[in-house]
């Protein structure tokens, strides 16, 4: 007994010394994530039809959209899927796309067939973008494919109709489209569409690469780049391909993720496209229907050494709350994940090193990614879904990462603290940020090759406060895509965000704008800048609510 007490005494002494000398703050309470997918009965698995022969598109499968298709106030989920190869057809139900209706009790109902979204006639599907292109109050879907892309109109009764043919959305033959984003580039109140394309590909032109008798996925160099395509929304369900007229057609890329933001603060949305093993593009909106590719000017075309990385997913948000959207794209293992700080709307500064992102990310192959304030402390963190391109070694399966933002200056890896379900090792691909249970904490939905998706519910138990803002445009597009929000808390802290559903890779997130407020329960003001130019200010708001804001007449 005495010896035990002595030991205890020593422990206390050392513990005290540790506290004195380390000077560290106690660790904050962090939420964790729990996978609730198994509670629901649905058949969807991300199926890239890997049977030994390695076809180029197989590495990219499993797009996700989080959107409220039935306007019941609960976010639903849509997943894209692969196809039989080399047939390039969804010959079997296992390749069908999937729509899951959120029942609101932690379970989801597979309503794909009823909604008409199986996609039986589609090829291999990749990215998906949700947006109300016809301003009828119901979110529509655009799905990217190897084979024709498809625009689904939400009929408002739980069903969708393929309206691609009458929309005028076409693309050159055999172009492989990876991701898409809705945004209103000319502020005419109608959502336009940007599609990132990778190459011209068919199973017949697929290249075989092998060494010592072992086949591997070919390096992207074997495929030629193509133009990304911009479609102008003419109204009445019609679109015009303005790729050439807008300037997009001048640049050929191997498109992956798309990030939409007003990088220079001129009131018009700009477009960043991550290109695989090529320079990235930053299309700055010239406010006259054209764009100028300005990645060189902004310093984001290449990494700091002038090298092109794999550039997978992309997102643009303000991580340091200085009022300017910053840029984050991830890369494959060993490359540098790009975190760029916006220098007052004129250029970007590479900050991967000083923010510690370069070191933290060195061992991960990232796919979808984004800024997300997972712990509601008011600082946007960096999430990435990870997994190797190929299954070639023991560490090909990877865990996702969450780099926690420390006061807008640097990041630390807290992935290991977010629960076993978050740390599932796999070949993760698409991801969406969404508040599935409307508790004000961001949940995650992640696909992984040859597995069911994970639906990761945030435990929301660290006591921090929040605000969700659902914008409804009138003169502006109804979704409010492009709305810029500035929130000032009661203590005077300012937070910034904007409306976009496009982030990461092949994915589309909750359109509601999320603010973590930390310990603060009151909001002094919320300034809302609509794409129409209207500025609206709401004062004295309480925290912890989903606030629906309708654009005023002027």
């Amino acid at each position, binding site marked *: 007994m005495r010896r035990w007490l002595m030991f205890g005494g020593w422990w206390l002494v050392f513990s005290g010394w540790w506290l004195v000398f380390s000077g560290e703050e106690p660790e904050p309470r962090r939420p964790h994530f729990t996978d609730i997918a198994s509670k629901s009965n649905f058949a969807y698995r991300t199926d890239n039809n890997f049977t030994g022969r390695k076809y180029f598109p197989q590495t990219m499968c499993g797009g996700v959209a989080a959107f409220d298709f039935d306007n019941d106030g609960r976010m639903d989920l849509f997943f894209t899927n692969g196809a039989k190869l080399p047939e390039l057809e969804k010959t079997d139900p296992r390749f069908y796309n999937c729509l899951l209706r959120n029942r609101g009790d932690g379970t989801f109902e597979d309503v794909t067939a009823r909604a008409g979204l199986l996609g039986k006639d589609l090829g291999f599907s990749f990215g998906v973008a949700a947006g109300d292109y016809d301003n009828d109050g119901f979110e529509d879907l655009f799905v990217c494919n190897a084979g024709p892309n498809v625009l689904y109109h939400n009929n408002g009764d739980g069903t969708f109709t393929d309206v691609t043919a009458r929309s005028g959305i076409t693309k050159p033959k055999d172009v492989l489209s990876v991701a898409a984003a809705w945004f209103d580039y000319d502020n005419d109140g109608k959502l336009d569409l940007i599609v990132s394309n990778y190459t011209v590909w068919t199973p017949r032109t697929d290249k075989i690469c092998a060494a010592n008798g072992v086949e*591997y996925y070919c390096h992207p160099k074997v495929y030629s780049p193509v133009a990304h395509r911009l479609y102008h929304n003419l109204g009445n369900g019609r679109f015009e391909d303005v790729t050439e007229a807008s300037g997009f057609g001048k640049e050929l890329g191997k498109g992956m993720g798309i990030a939409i933001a007003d990088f220079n603060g001129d009131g018009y949305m700009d477009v960043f496209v991550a290109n695989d093993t090529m*320079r990235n593009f930053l299309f700055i909106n010239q406010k006259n229907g054209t764009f100028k590719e300005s990645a*060189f000017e902004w310093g984001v075309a290449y990494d*700091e050494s002038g090298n092109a990385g794999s550039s997978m997913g992309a997102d643009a948000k303000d991580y340091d709350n200085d009022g300017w959207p910053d840029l984050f794209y991830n890369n494959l293992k060993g490359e540098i994940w790009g975190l760029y700080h916006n220098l007052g709307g004129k250029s970007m500064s590479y900050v*991967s090193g000083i923010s510690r992102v370069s070191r933290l990310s*060195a061992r991960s192959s990232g796919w979808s990614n984004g800024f997300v304030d997972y712990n509601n402390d008011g600082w946007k963190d960096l999430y990435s879904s990870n997994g190797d391109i190929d299954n070639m070694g023991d560490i090909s399966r990877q865990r996702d990462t969450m780099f926690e933002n420390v006061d807008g200056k640097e990041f630390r890896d807290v992935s290991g603290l977010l629960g076993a379900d978050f740390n599932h090792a796999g070949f993760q691909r698409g991801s969406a940020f969404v508040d599935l249970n409307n508790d004000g904490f961001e949940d995650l939905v992640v696909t992984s090759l040859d597995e069911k998706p994970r639906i990761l519910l945030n435990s929301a138990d660290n006591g921090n406060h929040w605000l969700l803002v659902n914008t409804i445009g009138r003169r502006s597009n109804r979704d409010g895509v492009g709305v810029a929000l500035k929130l000032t808390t009661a203590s005077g802290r300012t937070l910034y965000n904007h409306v976009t559903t496009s982030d990461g890779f092949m994915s589309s997130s909750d359109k509601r704008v999320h603010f973590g407020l930390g310990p603060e329960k009151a909001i002094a003001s919320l300034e809302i800048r609509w794409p129409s130019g209207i500025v609206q200010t709401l004062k004295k708001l309480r925290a912890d609510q989903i606030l629906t804001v309708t654009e005023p007449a002027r």
Partner: protein
Amino acid sequence: MTIMRHLEGGQSCPQPPFRRLFLALALILPALYAQQPAADPDALLQHAIALHQAGDLDGAIRAYREYLAAQPDSVQARSNLGAALARAGRYEEAIAEYDRALSKSPENPALLLNLGLAYYKTGRPAEAATRFERAASLAPQFKGQVTLLLASCDNSLGKYKQAVALLAPLENEKSADQAFNYIYGTALIGDGQSASGAAVIDRILSAGDSAEALLLRGTLKLRAHDHDGALADLEKAIALNGRLPGAHARLGELLLAMREKDGARTAFGQELALDPDEFVSNLNMGVLAKQDQEYAAARRYFECALKARPNDPGVRYQMAILDLATGNPDQARKALEALIGESPDFAEAHATLATVYYRLDRSADGDRERAIAQKLMDQRDAADTGVRAR
């Protein structure tokens, strides 16, 4: 990470150890020199030489200095002092003494050869090469020794084609000489002559397993993107000879290609622990430090790399990026403009210069450089079959 701490604490690259190939020459040349008849039969000088020959280097250095205090113009004594200092590993002092001797006897080929060796041992192959060339031009009997040294300098400087040109005529005569085979094989592989390089490797391996041959074969496999094969060879080479110059550096390059940055850092650190001036490791450690935005450390690594390969365009490019990243775009501009003047096909330099011009509000110049960069990269992409894993 010993080397990292050293670089962070100090401002210059430390002295490298002897290289195996030159150990024999370093020992032989001072002895040959000491056997030459002394111009001055002074007893003190004889005593110094005796001490030198007996291996009492400190005693010999003291005696030579004592003699030179009275006879400062004695070329032989100063040359011997340089040789003793070099043998004691005090290369910078040796270089100073050789230079003073050469100021009195500028056409002395033995002095030039020794000075070249001292430069080589301090990791300055460019300076070494000019002395070797001069020595060989003055004394044709040195040509045999000098050719191999010059080729080795060319390899160190990345001038593989020149090294091949020097050694190819000697291939039949020297094919049994393993040192020759190693230097020649390095040059062939560096020059992209993979098949010829492989033949030289086979010649070395026919005499038994050799770390040098495995290093060369690993290099060939790395170039051919056979990462697993390269890893096996390089690990075996290091197991056979952990001090083989360049082996850890090559392993570091391989690990970088395999996207294993931490392992690469360790390998480059091990190379630099053996030879702090080694070019590849300094360059890559600098790049890794730059990626982490540890710019001061990066600059020190690059400066060390430049010491090994003065004016290397890759290193100068990296230093220009440092200038841009640390808020000196005008300095970056000057460096990049100079670099492009010498290497007009350097696509990355054009790309970075475009960004620099845009930062300096010189849009027209930026547009021009951007167009050049794109054209060069497009040409490179068109030539790249890409048939390899990513």
